[in-house]
């Protein structure tokens, strides 16, 4: 794998723990190159590991096995080994007719683990402090325009097309709409007259922004960067309530149907329709991505597409819509991880650096380029605060040793 070539370039020979305290998060980095891993394994086999080394080894293995690498071509060797081993046991059983419990030598993990490496950052209460190894390369930061951390901001488009910029510190008051610049609240009764026309507003969140809106029925919606939501100024009594997530990511806390004469709530987005029954859920449908992710936190929803009738979701489940392949796939997910963006955290689980940078680019409104193509596919696990400077996050990543350096010039980030 490309990775092995990368690892051999590392100059550090010691395993190190480095601790960073960044705002309220405490992160621990455990980074080991493959040579070190191999040395540790050999020690283990010869019973020479200290307790700390044992723990290190276990953590390394856990992080490794969390990967998807089971069946790449490289592991054909492992399959062959397993196959031979199984056959030997089968022979013994059918020839001698004796059965015994197999034990698998630890050595089998060696080949397994060598094929890839995953860096683990854990946020846990206990930590040790060791000397940090000096990194030889310094990263360059050239900014004429500093990169700002994302803030609450949005553009509200009224029915007549007027656009109003909503930003912290600016108030906006009009009929049923009230905004303090950080959120916008709609008030007003439901329209009684079934014949009356529904007027729609749009809330557009730019890169570097996030916003909150409370719709006229009390439904609360948190909107992430690069998002646009279309919704009625007020809902018609007794009629289904529908909003459209034109693109981006939004978290909905829907006001129960029973408070609105049983009127159901639904969210339409690119290629899918979600029916809601008083609940909390997250929809992620970015313009630049092919997949739409719908995660249910509480309650119940039904997700439907053109070709498929309702797929019911239970809390803790996520359905991924692939419009190209026309598939809807359900799985159980870590709900906190999928919705932590609302609480000021980034949560990355086994995510490639390329994809991590996409998420960061939306929040910090920067462009990202990879000079080192291999670095794009390195996977990370981590939970990071959104309220820190981008440079801090990039430095954190750099200190793991898996990227050489990064460069920031104006609003462009280059990873090397």
């Amino acid at each position: 794998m490309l990775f092995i070539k990368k690892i051999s370039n590392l100059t550090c020979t010691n395993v190190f723990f480095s601790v960073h305290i960044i705002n309220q998060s405490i992160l621990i980095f455990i980074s080991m190159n493959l040579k070190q891993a191999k040395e540790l394994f050999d020690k283990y086999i010869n019973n020479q590991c200290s307790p700390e080394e044992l723990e290190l080894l276990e953590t390394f293995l856990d992080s490794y096995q969390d990967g998807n690498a089971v069946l790449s071509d490289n592991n054909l060797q492992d399959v062959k080994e397993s196959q031979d081993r199984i056959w030997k046991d089968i022979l013994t059983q059918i020839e001698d007719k004796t059965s015994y419990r197999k034990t698998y030598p630890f050595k089998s993990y060696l080949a397994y683990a060598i094929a890839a490496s995953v860096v683990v950052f854990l946020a846990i209460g206990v930590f040790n402090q060791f000397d940090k190894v000096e990194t030889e390369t310094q990263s360059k930061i050239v900014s004429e325009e500093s990169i700002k951390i994302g803030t609450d901001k949005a553009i509200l488009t009224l029915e007549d097309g007027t656009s109003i910029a909503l930003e912290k510190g600016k108030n906006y008051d009009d009929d049923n709409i009230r905004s303090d610049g950080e959120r916008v609240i709609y008030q007003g009764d439901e329209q009684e007259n079934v014949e009356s026309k529904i007027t729609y507003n749009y809330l557009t969140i730019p890169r570097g922004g996030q916003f909150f809106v409370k719709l006229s029925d009390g439904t609360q919606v948190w909107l992430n960067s690069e998002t646009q939501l279309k919704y009625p100024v007020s809902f018609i009594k007794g009629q289904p309530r529908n909003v459209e997530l034109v693109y981006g990511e939004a978290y909905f806390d829907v006001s129960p149907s029973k408070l609105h004469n049983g009127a159901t709530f639904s969210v339409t987005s690119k290629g899918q329709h979600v029916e809601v029954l008083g609940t909390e859920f997250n929809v992620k449908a970015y313009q630049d991505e092919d997949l739409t992710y719908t995660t249910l936190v509480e309650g119940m929803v039904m997700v439907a597409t053109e070709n498929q009738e309702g797929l019911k979701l239970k809390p803790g489940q996520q359905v991924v819509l692939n419009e190209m392949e026309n598939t809807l796939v359900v799985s159980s997910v870590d709900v906190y991880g999928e919705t932590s963006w609302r609480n000021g955290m980034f949560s990355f689980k086994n995510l490639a650096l390329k994809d991590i940078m996409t998420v960061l680019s939306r929040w910090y409104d920067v462009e990202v380029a990879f000079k080192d193509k291999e670095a794009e596919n390195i996977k990370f696990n981590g939970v990071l605060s959104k309220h820190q400077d981008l440079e801090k996050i990039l430095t954190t990543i750099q200190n793991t040793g898996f990227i050489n350096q990064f460069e920031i010039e104006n609003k462009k980030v280059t990873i090397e």
Partner: protein
Amino acid sequence: MFTSYTNHALLKRIAVDDIKAFEELYQRYAGKMLVYALNILKKRDVCEDLVQNVFIDFWSKRKTNSIENVEAYLFRAVKFQVFNYFRDHKFSNEDLTRLNIVDVSMNAAKKMEYDELESTIQDVVNQLPPRCKEIFELSRYDHKSNKEIAETLNVSIQAVKNQISKALITIRANLHREELLFFFIVFFENHF
């Protein structure tokens, strides 16, 4: 020596205790079966055990077996092993290779019978349009690769993929019980 034998011929030899013939059969399918199991469950030692169980069981029944399609039989057997493993053990999302598993919590608690679930799925498969059904069965029951199916039926690989995709969507849409969906997703959707 046995590499040129057909599966049927191998079975005949195995029935008269020919271990070398048995080994040939093993070499033909064990790898694929192991890979199949690993594609569902990450625990390598467990998967090895499951594959081993299938072959040991097969050997013990060698004299009374009357199998039409050995490959399909072996894969069904390993699926059965995997299924029983799910039913009898607690497991978490961490143990599963792919995340396409609906509601991991429903395992040991519910009473799932392999045969019942399998036959309900078969009913739904039977409703597929003929061509679609044929391709789906070749893929999921006989475990042929898309390439093999394309060559056998003289169609493009993309056409095969489309039919399989269509089948998956249709079948899923027709499965209502949670267990069925779970069963289906575990055994039929883990192809790459």
